[in-house]
């Protein structure tokens, strides 16, 4: 297994240094994720909720529009009506908990860019048209939207921490775009 994991390469491994140099961006590679498409009222969804969150996550507790549930590392993000992205630590296998549900392992389909700190929201606002002000979006909010010209899932996990789920093939583009948008803020840290 260790051999196997060593063979992985994350979509932004080649930009790790540049991201680290900003002081507020990094890749969270290899997170486990599954797209689940089912009515939260289905019994199988209640079972899945219970398995994931160590308590019965009933229909009403699956996240509503624009919201995520979970406190990390495990989250369920609302993607659309009857459509959720379940996210967990790298290497976590959730197949058995998802048996009987249309759940697709998409762990390798996306990678995650995490932005954290006082500039995170401003940097995102350079390319994201939705309102990220705390009155409109805050910890526990998530949205599928555009960031620059990439389609992303945006998930705010804490007061000044955002996760950007981006498709693997777009990751290089988006990271380079964010690095460019971050230039003024990086200097502000340096200064």
């Amino acid at each position, binding site marked *: 297994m260790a051999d196997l994991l060593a063979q992985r390469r994350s979509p932004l491994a080649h930009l790790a240094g540049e991201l680290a140099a900003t002081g507020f961006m990094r890749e969270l590679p290899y997170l486990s994720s599954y797209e689940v498409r089912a009515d939260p009222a289905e019994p199988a969804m209640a079972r899945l909720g219970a398995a994931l969150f160590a308590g019965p996550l009933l229909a009403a507790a699956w996240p509503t529009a624009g919201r995520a549930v979970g406190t990390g590392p495990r989250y369920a993000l609302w993607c659309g009506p009857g459509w959720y992205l379940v996210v967990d630590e790298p290497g976590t296998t959730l197949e058995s908990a998802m048996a009987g549900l249309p759940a697709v392992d998409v762990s390798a389909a996306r990678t995650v860019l995490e932005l954290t700190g006082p500039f995170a929201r401003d940097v995102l606002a350079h390319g994201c048209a939705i309102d990220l002000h705390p009155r409109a979006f805050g910890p526990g909010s998530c949205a599928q939207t555009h960031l620059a010209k990439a389609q992303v899932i945006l998930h705010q996990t804490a007061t000044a921490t955002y996760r950007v789920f981006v498709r*693997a093939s777009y990751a290089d583009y988006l990271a380079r775009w964010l690095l460019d948008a971050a230039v003024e803020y990086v200097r502000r840290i340096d200064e």
Partner: protein
Amino acid sequence: MSQPFRRAAGGRIDRSRTLTFHFEGRAYEAHPGDTLSSALLANGVRVVARGPYTGRPRGTYGIGAEEPNAFVQVDSGPGEPMVRATQLEVYDGLVARSLAGKGSLGEEPDDSRYDKTWAHCDVLVVGAGPAGLAAAHAAGVTGARVILADERPEPGGDLLGGRAHLDGRPAMDWVTDLRARLAGLPEVRVLPRTTVTGAYDGNFLVAVQRRTEHLGPAAPAHVARQRLWHIRAGQVVLATGAHERPILFPDNDRPGVMLAAAAAGYAWRYGVLPGRRAVVAGAHDGALWAAVDLVDAGVELAAVLDARHLAGGQAHRALRDRGVVVAAGHGVVGTDADADGVLTAAWVAPVDGDGQARRIACDLLATSGGWNPAVHLYSQAGGRPRWSDDHAAFVPGDPLPAVACVGAAAGTFDLADALAEGAEAGWQAAAATHGGGGEEPLPPATDSVASAGAPAACWITARADSPPETIFVDLQRDATLRDVRRAVGAGMRASEHVKRFTTAGTAADQGRTTGVTTVGVLAGLLGLPVGAVGTTTYRPPYAPISFALLAGRDRGRLLDPERRTPMHERHEADGAVFENVGQWKRPWYYPAPGEDLDQAVLRECRAAREGVAMMDVSTLGKIDLRGPDVGEFLDRVYTNRFSTLRVGQCRYGVMCRADGMVFDDGVTARLAPDRYHMTTTTGNAAAVLDWLDEWLQTEWPDLRVSATSVTDQWAAVAVVGPGSREVLRRLAPSLDVSAEAFPFLTVRDATVAGIPARVFRISFTGELSYEINVPAWYGLALWDAVAEAGRPAGITPYGTETMHVLRAEKGFIVAGQDTDGTVTPHDAGLGWAVSTVKPFIGGRSLARPDTARNDRKRLVGLLPADPSVVLAEGAQLVVDADAPTPVPMLGHVTSSYRSAALGRSFALALVAGGLTHRGETLQAVDGGQAHPVVVTEPVFYDAEGARRDG
């Protein structure tokens, strides 16, 4: 180097520092806070531009965004054409030159950074004059999210150059206090040097922020020079002020002729005398107060004219106190100039009748016909300005939802009224969006005075015999009264026609000073009320936006996303030449040292046909389909049947649009009774997923199917050629790769190179081949493992070009290359895949009279008579290339290559009547050359399919 017209004191400039700038090659001094216009006036430079057609000299005319004349070319820094000198902040090292209505683009690239951002607010206040400041403050104290944008470097608007008092103190003290209070409100954002330039539907507004231009060479390179703001506002308060308009008269274009309030503004805001001896001519109280400001600044008033027949009022008294008597009922009827064309005198006469004109020597002629509320954004947002006789101006008409116009922008010129109106609008706007809160602030007390009388709509003062070609209605376009008269004489009645006929109002200033005046003149000529003629439409942008800013960050590599497969860096290392396929970067071919495309492709093809080769096929669209009704759904989507596919099997499928034309194709596998894995062409992956969702949601919601894109989840390597089985055997020792155990068109889960994989035995080349899919983060490891395992057999990576040759040799089409949106499956030779039993999307269309014709263009093969000739893709096929034009065309070449396997060239084509021409010789015409070709079946290689089992 002295500044002879600089006043001894005053103005919002920093006299402790001196800057040096160059204009027209000469060095001058200025102070921080100066604009180029104020600095040139301070230095006595009157000529700043020339008329584009007349060549006549022109001077600074206004003081801000309304300026029609003083457009300059900036040569320092990144350089910029057509910059208003009245708004260009002077910096040390500024280099500018005059223009004649036309700028020039530099030759060096502009490497400045340009930025964009998105912002949301409850209340957007446009303009930080008194009304705007009051509005922003009233909205801000409620806790609402407020953006206050103003085009000038500092807030204050007209208070910056005025001498008004608020709450008994100089007005700028009040502004300073208010700035501090706004700064203490965390949800209020003040954006100076920011022009709101576009108002779009749903209170979406666009603003341009100039961030570093005023710093000149000191501007930090990492800070974006400009930023484009996209603002979504709950409520908008337009406090955009008003633009002063002139009165027209003969030779009204001389340097030295200036708008009156602008002239006064230079004196008080910048501490510059716009002239030493002035004639002031107006038709409203504002002109008289400007005269008071000028005389108080030390300008000698040679005459003050008012086109109105009024006497009395505070302005008259104020002037009389200063020894100046207003000449009521008088106007300017001409000017004189010196050899340089600069004003030396005004000719003055009564406005009624043809009384004797009097010459008055002066170096400043300050004119003001009134104020035009800046209704541009109101109009852009959908409002229709209406003419008001009371204001002698166009003012905002019917109110717009969630938009308020306040202050001078609404025709409220009195300071006290404007402050109250602004505060109330800000308060109400916050209440409407944010819910309000706090205590409504009271506007400050003012010392404003009653007016002498209503403004008059006075457009022109001239004598009957004044030559109309000397009365300029548009200074930047050199358009004159003569042009307007000609337009009317030609039959034109609409202001838009006259604008187009005369070009008045179409220059870079967009007719800001004289647009309404032109309408007034036209109304006079037509004998109509001004309101009946109406303004031309105000279109975005209010102020010009640079192309570079609109492009923003979307330049160079970031112009459009570059999609990469997990193996991208290996392809780069292997020297691949890439092809853009949609947004994807795909290896096109891998030239060995010294090879060109043809040589590389022949080598790659030979490897695939004779040995073993590998290709990155990760870009293919992949869709995971789940649910009990997937089979039924696919039967409806594909032309052929998929419900009968057994688990572990794959099938090639074609889908059509509803019009029966080929949309996409690919191989789809059944992984479980309720689970299919669909592949699409690289370019259509998103379109196909959208297509599936559309039918599922909008037509067949009863079908229990869910579709998930897994394109990015899987990296895939095709291992192709007679040697591919051996390579796979090495990589997957536990997988039985024999033809019996792993037959063609089946799929197996296996461990390949130690990686959990899904292996498809499918072939797009006709050779034995496997497509190994692994989770994307293993893609690079898989690629390297395949290369390593194939090394003994000389495995060769190949790109899209070789793939195209190999598939074409087998007659396999590429949707989008051999089809073009007018091709049915039958036309493409895919009739075998079209069910005649079950219905499918587009099926009905195939029975339409034209679609059912037998002589449609159909896929055929072509063999050039000369086997060394590779036809051009896109060559047209004709019977007789020498026939007279139009030469009837039978079809065209869709794919054409040199084949290593065939030892010759070949092609695919669409030809009317298709294989009814089999064996016939046609001419393939490209670039005037005709090549004889023989029509054949579109399968050139291994027609019996013997090779796919290796």
